[in-house]
């Protein structure tokens, strides 16, 4: 800590910061543009000027840029100094000379850092009387709108896009007052993280194009803290709603998880919630004896009574849960049908993979790091995961982690971390150790030390060899080639030499040996006194929660139904056709007398259900997800959906009540449901605490979902009814659907978004953090459910698999992942659907040659009677003897591993 003097008052500040950081951390108001907490300082905009004095006798002082000046002990500065203030006003006045000042028609208006800083600086009258320069805008694709005239040339966008996120198709062009930020030509931005430009840009150059289609000012949005549902990382989000429509997704800072950013899948995958195809009503599908189907909308009460009868008549009901449904929903289903009749909804393989990861993390000595900690790693091995496409934000973190080791160069010559341009100048393109071993090339390969593409079993064998190279007692495979041994040695040396080594693996290759190999590596490191971390990606937003709850697999559920041991099948938020073979799911529908599906979106499964109950999508309900780290996080209802739509767990509770299994008081609130969860499932104990209970009050008040400037409250429904409706009740959280309530300091898990007086943009965040870039005050949201068994030394997993053997006729299917397309719900969102790649079957050049096919030729994939045709894509990176199929886009049978598929050329007819 150091004492610094600001306007003659002493303050204690943390070491190693610059003055701007220090001032903002202290809650002082000081304007800035080019500095960004995640991007550091470059001193370009000159907006953050303060007066610095030599000592207390120096009355003259001189202006310095606070973002470029270390907050060193005893430094004396003034923010309020007249000359400093005037200079900051002048900077704004000059930025405004070319700014169009079109706030009324600008999507940024009302949450614009430029507006805030203009007001903060005190500038109001502009003297400039000449023409403004103008620019041409570009079409940047379906996500982002471009309005270059609003640019204030802070260079944040280009620093974020290129330096931070590693994008290459965006730059700054030209010079003097004509600098231009965009692409070399109009076109869709290639980065998977482009949407962050919207929040990084302090003005309205980059705005959300999806929001523009149904635009609403920030202050008119109803918001609540939420969690992204589009992968297993659980990034924190702020969805915004108006008139029952989800208008956008914004980042919600969580220092341990997503920090300042989101991926484009998470930001733009939300439109499925607004789809006209949504399941919004109870649907009853009847088939008469002649097999003629009628579909009718049913009355909720009638259907509940009907279902209660079905369930009561001594019938056996089984429940099939889902890794994309909340902990509460899966638990409620389990409670309705009984643990013995409850199935996870994941295939046997997936259940085994995820359970195995949890087991490894719980019984082993290696810690599962938070996403933030992944960014701190200084040597990383990725085993089997296409991180960018499976767990996108983890890839963004890895792009930072490779900077850690070479950062020593900058430290050695005394450059502070925040001095971004100087650090990058000193470090140049040096990257720390990152090894990527995957079935096919991945986008992160461009920053990797070395890469290795091989069939899944061979990836596991590399992992075993690495473990063995660290600790000779760890088993290794037979016939390890010299090449693999050499690579393993290199990787082992890098991991051992690191302060924070990290291994990343997961279920993407559907290969348990890879997971075990990853465990062996970190355990070998732990055994040799290295603080190794082990991170597994999780396939879906609540895969880990579902696995912690436990239950038998989908395969067993299907078998149970086939065996005639279930009369009623209740499926919660799960499209079985995406997971299991078509024939098997068809069989389930054939054998089950009654199938009830609760879901929010129409799927192949809802299409066949006898009864479909409309479930709340994430912004319409409350619940808890457990992410890949084992962090339980609460998402809170943003708005009350219309009609019968309600959380799946509420439907299931209603069924329990209707069947007399519970009385009305049971689980009246989410909190009570969670109490039951904790009681029944020790592995989930802690879930209740990941957000304060509904009874929580701050100074006796609830937390408002609406801004204090929320407009039209009394008018927005006036065309329906002139009397203002009663504020809707929320039994599940301490939030209220109102403008009134407490707006001060709150537990972070209850903060709907970040706003402070004078800070209307995303930059308000500094008012809520303990320190810049650090945790939110009171701790970041979420409760970790998985901690390592410190000091344990579990036995290594046994021998490595045999060398992958190419088969004569069949090829091993390997899933290839796509950030846009592989995930179910986001793929239903039109802006994102535009970016989904065309179907393909990928073959190595030698396989293509053997099959006499070239790029674009059609092949047919066949497995157990199922057939699927796709054009060939020849990929030199793909191992021989495999066929790459796009995950989530190809039929499920071709994605279940190990699937040996016959591939044949389809002759043109």
């Amino acid at each position, binding site marked *: 800590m150091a004492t610094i003097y600001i306007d003659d008052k002493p303050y204690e500040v943390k070491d190693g910061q610059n003055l701007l950081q220090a001032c903002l951390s202290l809650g002082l108001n000081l304007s800035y543009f080019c500095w960004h907490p995640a991007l550091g300082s*470059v*001193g*370009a*905009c*000159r*907006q953050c*000027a303060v007066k610095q004095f030599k000592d207390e006798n120096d009355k003259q002082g*001189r*202006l*310095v840029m606070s973002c*470029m000046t270390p907050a060193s002990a005893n430094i004396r500065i003034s923010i309020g100094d007249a000359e400093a203030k005037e*200079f900051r006003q*002048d*900077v704004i006045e*000059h*930025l405004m*000379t*070319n700014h169009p000042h079109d706030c009324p028609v600008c999507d940024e208006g009302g949450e614009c850092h430029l507006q805030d800083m203009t007001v903060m600086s005190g500038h109001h009258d502009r*003297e*400039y009387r*000449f023409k403004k*320069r103008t620019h041409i805008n570009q079409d940047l694709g379906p996500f982002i709108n471009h309005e270059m005239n609003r640019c*204030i*040339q802070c*260079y944040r966008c280009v620093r974020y896009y290129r330096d931070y996120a590693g994008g290459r198709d965006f730059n*700054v062009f*030209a*010079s*003097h*007052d*004509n*600098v231009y930020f965009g692409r070399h030509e109009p076109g869709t931005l290639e980065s998977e993280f482009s949407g962050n430009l919207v929040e990084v840009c302090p003005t309205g150059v980059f705005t959300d194009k999806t929001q523009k289609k149904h635009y609403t000012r920030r202050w008119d949005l109803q918001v609540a803290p939420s969690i992204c549902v589009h992968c297993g990382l659980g990034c924190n989000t702020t969805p915004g709603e108006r008139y029952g429509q989800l208008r956008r997704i914004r980042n919600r800072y969580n220092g341990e998880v997503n920090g300042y950013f989101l991926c484009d899948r998470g930001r733009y995958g939300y439109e499925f919630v607004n789809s006209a195809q949504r399941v919004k009503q109870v649907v009853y599908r009847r088939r008469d004896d002649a097999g003629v189907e009628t579909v009718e909308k049913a009355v909720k009460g009638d259907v509940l009574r009907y279902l209660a009868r079905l369930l009561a008549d001594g019938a056996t009901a089984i429940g099939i849960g889902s890794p994309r449904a909340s902990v509460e929903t899966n638990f409620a289903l389990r409670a309705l049908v009984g643990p013995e009749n409850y199935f996870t909804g994941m295939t046997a393989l997936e259940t085994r993979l995820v359970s195995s990861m949890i087991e490894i993390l719980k019984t082993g000595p290696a810690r599962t790091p938070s996403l933030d900690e992944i960014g701190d790693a200084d040597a990383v091995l990725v085993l089997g995961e296409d991180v960018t496409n499976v767990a996108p934000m983890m890839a963004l973190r890895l792009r930072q982690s490779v900077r850690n080791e070479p950062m020593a*160069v*900058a430290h050695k*010559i*005394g*450059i502070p971390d925040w*001095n971004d*341009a*100087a650090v990058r*100048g*000193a*470090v*140049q393109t040096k990257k720390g150790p990152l090894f990527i071993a995957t079935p096919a090339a991945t986008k992160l390969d461009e920053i990797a030390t070395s890469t290795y593409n091989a069939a899944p079993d061979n990836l596991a064998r590399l992992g075993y060899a690495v473990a063995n190279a660290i600790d000779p007692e760890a088993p290794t495979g037979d016939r390890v080639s010299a090449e693999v041994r050499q690579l393993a040695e290199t990787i082992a040396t890098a991991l051992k030499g690191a302060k924070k080594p990290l291994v990343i693996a997961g279920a993407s290759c559907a290969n348990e040996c890879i997971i075990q190999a990853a465990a062996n590596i970190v355990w070998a490191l732990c055994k040799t006194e290295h603080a190794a971390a082990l991170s597994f990606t999780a396939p879906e937003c609540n895969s880990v929660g579902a696995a912690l709850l436990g239950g038998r697999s989908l395969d067993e559920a299907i078998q149970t139904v086939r065996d005639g041991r279930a009369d009623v099948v209740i499926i919660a938020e799960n499209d079985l056709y995406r997971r299991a073979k078509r024939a098997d799911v068809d069989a389930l529908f054939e054998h089950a007398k009654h199938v009830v599906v609760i879901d929010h979106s129409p799927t192949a499964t809802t299409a066949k259900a006898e009864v479909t109950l409309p479930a709340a999508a994430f912004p319409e309900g409350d619940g808890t997800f457990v992410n890949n780290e084992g962090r339980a996080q609460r998402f809170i209802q943003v708005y009350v959906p219309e009609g019968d739509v309600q959380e799946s767990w509420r439907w299931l509770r209603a069924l329990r009540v209707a069947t007399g299994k519970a009385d009305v008081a049971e689980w009246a609130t989410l909190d009570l449901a969670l109490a039951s969860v904790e009681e029944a499932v020790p592995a989930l104990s802690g879930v209740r605490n990941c957000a304060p209970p509904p009874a929580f009050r701050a100074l006796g008040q609830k937390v408002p979902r609406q801004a204090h400037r929320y407009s039209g409250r009394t008018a927005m429904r006036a065309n329906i009814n002139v009397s203002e409706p009663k504020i809707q009740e929320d039994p599940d959280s301490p939030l209220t659907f109102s403008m009134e309530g407490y707006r001060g300091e709150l537990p972070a898990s209850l903060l709907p978004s970040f706003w402070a007086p004078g800070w209307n943009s995303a930059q308000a965040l500094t008012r809520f953090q303990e320190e810049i870039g650090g945790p939110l005050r009171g701790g970041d949201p979420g409760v970790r459910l998985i901690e390592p068994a410190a000091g344990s030394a579990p036995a290594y997993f046994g021998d490595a698999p045999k060398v992958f053997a190419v088969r004569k006729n069949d090829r091993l299917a390997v899933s290839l992942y796509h950030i846009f397309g592989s995930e179910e719900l986001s793929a239903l969102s039109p802006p994102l659907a535009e970016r989904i790649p065309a179907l393909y079957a990928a073959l190595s050049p030698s396989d293509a040659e053997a099959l006499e096919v070239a790029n674009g030729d059609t092949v047919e994939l066949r497995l157990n009677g199922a057939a699927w045709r796709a054009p060939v894509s020849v990929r030199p990176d793909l191992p021989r003897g495999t066929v790459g199929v796009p995950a989530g886009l190809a039929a499920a049978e071709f994605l279940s591993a190990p699937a040996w598929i016959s591939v044949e050329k389809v002759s043109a007819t």
Partner: protein
Amino acid sequence: MTDRPLTKNIRPGQPPLDLKGYEKAGGYAAVRKALGGMAPKDVTQVIKDSNLRGRGGAGFPTGVKWSLVPIGPDAPRPKYLVVNADEMEPGTFKDRLLLEGDPHQLVEAVIVAAYAIEAETAYIFLRGEYILAAKLLMQAIAEARAAGYLGNNILGSGYNLDLHLHTSAGRYICGEETALLNSLEGKRATPRAKPPFPQISGLWGKPTIVNNVETLSNIPHILVNGPEWFKGLSHTPNGGTKLYGVSGKVKRPGVWELPMGTTVRELLEEHAGGMRDGLKLRGIIPGGASTDFLGEEHLDLQLDFDTVGKAGSRMGTGTMIILDDQTCPVGFVHSLIQFFAHESCGWCTPCREGLPWTEKILAALEAGQGEMADLDRLGKQVKFMAPGMTFCPLAPGAMSPLGSGIKRFREDFERHIREKRCPWR
């Protein structure tokens, strides 16, 4: 020993000396001396003792700059020496004389300087338009390499040096040493923040020295003739000779090597032949466009770093631009500001936005559309772009002729507004 060391080999209208001729004139003796037994730090010490100050404009002591480079076996490698031959300062054409007139002198200087800082690679960053200089330098470098002055194990000393010529794509800001380094790295030519200084983290993050052509060209002579000799060349304590230039409506514009501390009067009247007939001197910008106006009262000022500094301007590059009484001072300043506004790199707000606004005001004054409030605004702009307010010295440099011009020629500015026209048109 000569009292015109820099230009002694230069014959107007003649091609420069080739390697043989240069050697015959005593060339490469400094390389032999330095590499033939002097320790690198001893070379630096000689330069320190000579009190040689940078001729690129700022006048920073060269030996002191070199001594900040980490030396010895633990120093980061590779290290670089970069010659700043970008010479784009308006009114400045002194380095060109040395580049075209005696390229071997520069090559020799590079070898000695690089040896002093133990650099293994050197670059000459040359203004793109200096096509003849590029050709001559390439010849000289090839000759030197063939003769074993460049390459591995130079003259059997065990010292290795590569020298590359890089021709600039042509932005004024590339002359600013850190923007130059970014440009050399293939990045946008925006300056870097200091610290870290290039001596610590320069080209590709390695210790680097950037020196001006004229600065370096002094090195071989100092090494051969000694620091005391060098100091003795000067009329003032600033040491050495200086290439002084004069442009504007004088009888004989040109560039001359004269003792440091030569007076404005001598330069103007003896060497440049005085004002053209019928014209009177109104103002002097002493050292390239980025310096404050001096006036008639400064005719007896000795031109060196300290003396000109005390008179309220800077010696800068030592190449003066003369304003006569029949040229509009507003138009004169406008033309300079136009240049600077166009050459702003666009990195920092005051310069990127401030210069175009300033330029538009001056254009309005010239077009008879000025307002009295414009003069206050121009004054504000000068303050707004003062040293320290901007990221690099480009904009403060641009404000020098404007700020001093408004003070000196206020009446001319006001006439433009009162008469709603340029009185010189």
